[in-house]
């Protein structure tokens, strides 16, 4: 069986000009990046473009990456910074366009009227959306820690290292994020558990 190169070997190979190594890095992390963007922003619309932008930034700056954290932590930070910029842009857009609110509300109403309630697939999607919407209600700092813990399965130490915060702060933010999620998903859990 062929030995699969680790992240360090891939980065080194790419620095020496092997673009196949970069392709492998993208393949290895594209799904995680796409999902972290989706869960952070709560919308699928921007996922493709932002994921592409993340890897373009990786391509551009991988020469400066020092391996002081894992490759994925570094890629994750790029993705999170991009999401933060996107959230800010959206806020500005929202603030300058009152139409945005009205249009989105009308679209939402139209969609919910058109939605076939009997379809299992749609119900499944709606339930996923409930979770994604609950995540959006969290503050960005709480959302980040809970996603790193629950989705990325990082340890408290790894989260602390990725977000440059103390382990104590990680513990308390995870606890608070879970409390808030449990509160906003109270009805959801009542139905399902």
């Amino acid at each position, binding site marked *: 069986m062929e030995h699969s190169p680790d992240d360090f070997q891939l980065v080194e190979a790419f620095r020496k000009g092997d673009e196949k190594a970069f*392709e492998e890095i993208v393949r290895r992390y594209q799904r995680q990046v796409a999902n972290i963007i989706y869960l952070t922003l709560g919308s699928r619309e921007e996922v493709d473009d932002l*994921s592409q932008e993340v890897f373009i930034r990786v391509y551009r700056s991988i020469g400066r990456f020092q391996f002081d954290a894992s490759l994925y932590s570094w890629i994750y930070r790029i993705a999170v910074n991009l999401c933060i910029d996107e959230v800010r842009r959206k806020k500005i857009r929202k603030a300058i366009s009152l139409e945005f609110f009205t249009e989105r509300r009308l679209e939402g109403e139209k969609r919910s009227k058109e939605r076939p309630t009997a379809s299992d697939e749609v119900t499944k999607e709606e339930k996923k959306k409930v979770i994604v919407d609950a995540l959006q209600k969290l503050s960005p700092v709480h959302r980040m820690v809970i996603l790193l*813990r629950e989705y990325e399965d990082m340890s408290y130490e790894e989260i602390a290292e990725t977000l440059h915060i103390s382990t104590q702060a990680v513990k308390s933010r995870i606890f608070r994020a879970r409390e808030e999620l449990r509160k906003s998903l109270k009805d959801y859990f009542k139905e399902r558990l």
Partner: protein
Amino acid sequence: MKTNHPEQLLSFYVDNELAEEERREISEHLASCESCRLALEELRALRVRIREAADVSLPDNFVYSVLRSARREQENSVVWISTERFARNVVVVLSVLVLMLVGLGTFLRSEPPIRVDRYLITEPTDTLAGQVLGTQGEISKDVMVYAVLTK
């Protein structure tokens, strides 16, 4: 156990981040507390549901579209860097030329010093004009104006 329902410790419990002793205490508490058992179930369900919600996948050609865009950006940046360097050199050359022209213009336009008649040397020596006239016998137009104004 200090509290009746140790919610925060449950959070660490579900993450396997408790010391052995604390873990044992929580397990004992869970055996007798239905409310905490339910809370623990919710915490476990939360993780599963978040992972289920993360079902986004990217197009099959994603890798190639990233590479294409990254290469294009790199090519553009090379062109931009060359253009910038060229523009910088042009600015430096033009600046030198302008400075040379200004210098040349100043040199060509400079007026000869004014010859001052001897009788003016009777100016008191404590004024600037007097000092200049007394020592040099000729002064530039600017100094002359200054001397007159400060007289």
